[in-house]
């Protein structure tokens, strides 16, 4: 057993943290959110130059073949500053789908420019009901005699669809009742794609993507026809764990900011942090944080080691979702009036926690997976 990161990983963490705190203070986060593109090209370029966009990709495509745990640590640091960027959707979701399921040709086409930061990819996962329907997608692909596919359907809350060079999605091939869904990629500016911004509580760039008779060449199928769900599943597992990493970064920051505030804010002639009610709120947060870090890191190390861990992943997402959200609620209570203002930064985490809880399944969903895993 070893519950600490090794020296290399600690160094990596420090370099992530130094860069992100310098480049991405909260003012910058707010700027980026207002910006049309929704990310900072400058930060993105620098991250590409530092090699962070290629952390877990094969060397032949420009990656550095680092461990999954390295990427987890990066997301933890991102969660602390809430950097809005296409990292999650482009590098993790799209990048891993391509790396794990694409042919050499597809990988050569997509991965090097993605890792260089020149191309941005996204994955359209959620249907009209907000469900990830990879097993039985509501998007329909119709094969035409020339061999191409005509796509119809709707995806919601697609991150960075506005700037994506390619959008990946699962579609059901019409008339094929045997095979499962297939994983496609479509050019972000293809004819028939209607991309509309969606206003959400976190103000990150999310779009509704409506496909109306969009023509996609058969060569754009990633992986095996009819096996899109099996391609998607392992990538989602990794994405969930990295989302937990991001939440843990946010959670750490919430605890730090709240404790800091409790030491500084005075009422009745003393710091509010000396009131026991406030101390016990903070202690509860610390208890939950300690446990959440352990259960999240457990899942991350298992994935890093290539060990199957459906139960551990579900446990991590369920627990992290609940306790991070709870901490942000309590944190708002401790900050009181000032915390409720738009201007004060703690509210960014309140929103982040809520969004993260709901993405990739909330705790009730994941507990039902845990129940399956323990034979109930």
């Amino acid at each position, binding site marked *: 057993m070893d*519950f600490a990161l090794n020296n290399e990983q600690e160094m990596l963490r420090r370099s992530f943290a130094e860069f992100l705190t310098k480049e991405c203070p909260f003012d910058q986060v707010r700027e980026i959110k207002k910006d049309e593109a929704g990310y900072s090209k400058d930060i993105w370029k620098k991250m590409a130059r530092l090699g962070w966009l290629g952390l877990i990709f094969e060397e032949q495509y420009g990656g550095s073949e680092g461990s999954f745990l390295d990427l987890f640590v990066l997301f933890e640091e991102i969660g602390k500053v809430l950097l809005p960027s296409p990292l999650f959707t482009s590098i993790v979701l799209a990048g891993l789908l391509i790396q794990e399921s694409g042919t050499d040709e597809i990988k050569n086409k997509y991965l090097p420019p993605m890792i260089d930061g020149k191309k941005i990819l996204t994955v359209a996962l959620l249907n009209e009901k907000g469900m990830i329907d990879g097993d039985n997608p509501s998007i329909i692909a119709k094969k035409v005699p020339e061999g191409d596919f005509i796509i119809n359907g709707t995806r919601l809350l697609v991150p960075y669809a506005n700037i994506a060079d390619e959008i990946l999605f699962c579609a059901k091939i019409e008339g094929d009742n045997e095979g499962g869904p297939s994983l496609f990629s479509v050019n972000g500016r293809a004819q028939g794609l209607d991309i509309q911004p969606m206003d959400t509580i976190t103000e990150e760039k999310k779009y509704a993507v409506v496909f109306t008779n969009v023509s996609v060449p058969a060569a754009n199928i990633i992986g095996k026809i009819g096996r899109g769900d099996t391609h998607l599943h392992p990538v989602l597992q990794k994405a969930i764990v990295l989302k937990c990493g991001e939440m843990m970064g946010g959670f750490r920051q919430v605890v730090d900011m709240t404790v800091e505030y409790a030491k500084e804010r005075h009422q009745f002639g003393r710091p509010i942090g000396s009131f026991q009610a406030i101390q016990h709120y903070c202690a*509860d947060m*610390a208890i939950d944080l300690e*446990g959440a870090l352990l259960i999240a*890191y457990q899942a991350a190390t298992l994935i890093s080691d290539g060990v199957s861990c459906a139960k551990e992943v579900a446990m991590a997402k369920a627990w992290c979702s609940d306790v991070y959200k709870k901490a942000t609620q309590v944190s708002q209570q401790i900050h009181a009036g000032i915390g409720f203002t738009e201007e004060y930064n703690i509210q960014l985490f309140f929103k982040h926690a809520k969004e993260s809880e709901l993405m990739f399944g909330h705790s009730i969903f994941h*507990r039902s997976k*845990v*129940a399956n895993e323990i034979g*109930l």
Partner: protein
Amino acid sequence: MNFKFTESQNELRRQVREFVEAELAAGTFKVVSKALVAQFSIEFSRKMAEQGWIGINWPKEYGGQGLGQVEKMIMLEEMFKYQAPVGYHFMGERQIGPALMKFGTDWQRDHFLPKIISAEKGIMFCLLFSEPDAGSDLAAVSTTAIKEGDDYIINGQKVWTSEGHVADYGWLLAKTNFDESLPKHRTCSEFIVDMKMPGITIRPLINMVGEHTFNEVFFDNVRISKKYLVGQEDAGFKQIMAQMNYERSGIERLLQNYPVYSELKRFINEMDESEKTGEYFFWIRDKMAQLEIEFTVGRLLCYSTAWSIDQGETPTSQAAISKAFCTQFEQRLNDFAMAVIGPNSIIREGAKWMPLVVDVAACYLWGVSYTLQGGSVEILKNIIAQRGLGLPR
């Protein structure tokens, strides 16, 4: 970072499990689930000593195996899964031994350590800390130990002394300095007391479960030799606090009712198929999954604290986190188990219709005490907030 046990740790676990299962099969003990380390048997402790499992984490120079806190936890985890009767040597091994190694005299070490580690007859310890007016505020003890020549004369009253009526020795905290200008945590000292000394009266207290495990202990001019003073005079409180991490990080805080946990899973699995549908069963699945997650979190907290101790750290806040979380988990477990089982769950042990192999009702009642002993959950939160997070007093 790595959450795996080593091969030799896995081997240790296998050995302990085999041992416990064999003892259980041979009828040496019964799975009784309720109190913290409720059962004791000198014979069982002897057998453990033969295996080298008492003092497994003690240094070799004191007869231990020189292994870590993690190894001790692995061993105890397997013991507590079946609630093996480890109570005879438990306190001595966990608390008294390490304290003597750190603060004791040569005579004390030579006299007590070999007896503890081999589970000799007459070496069971109890803790004489709490008093009627000194609970959470332990430094406020008013039992006095007044020096007279080469002896100390003890007067006063202790309370909640678990196993005081069966223990051979007590680990006593008493006031030795009456200088009012001193802060009270610098006025008390630690002693070892032979419980058979003249002047000691032990009165049973029956707890709300209906059982006799704790006691009142009265001292009336009890004379003990100064060689039983442990460590420095007036430094007792500090010495006790230095040991608290061992007490608080123990996996017994998670596993006091492990049989309820395993039995509950079995109970749910064996429910009629017709009951395993609909809203009610959905609720059961959700809550059981939640407990599975909490159990996992609690176990990770225990092991990571043990690991920190093995790294030479003093994880005061971490140990408090572990105990606060685990004891509250056990209360939720027992509460939920009774809800799933329904009205029959209030049937006490021995009745024909008792629904589980273990007395879940007793566990639920005992649960009240889990968040009190060894520092109430409120005191633990004070520690986490002030020592861990640095919030002002």
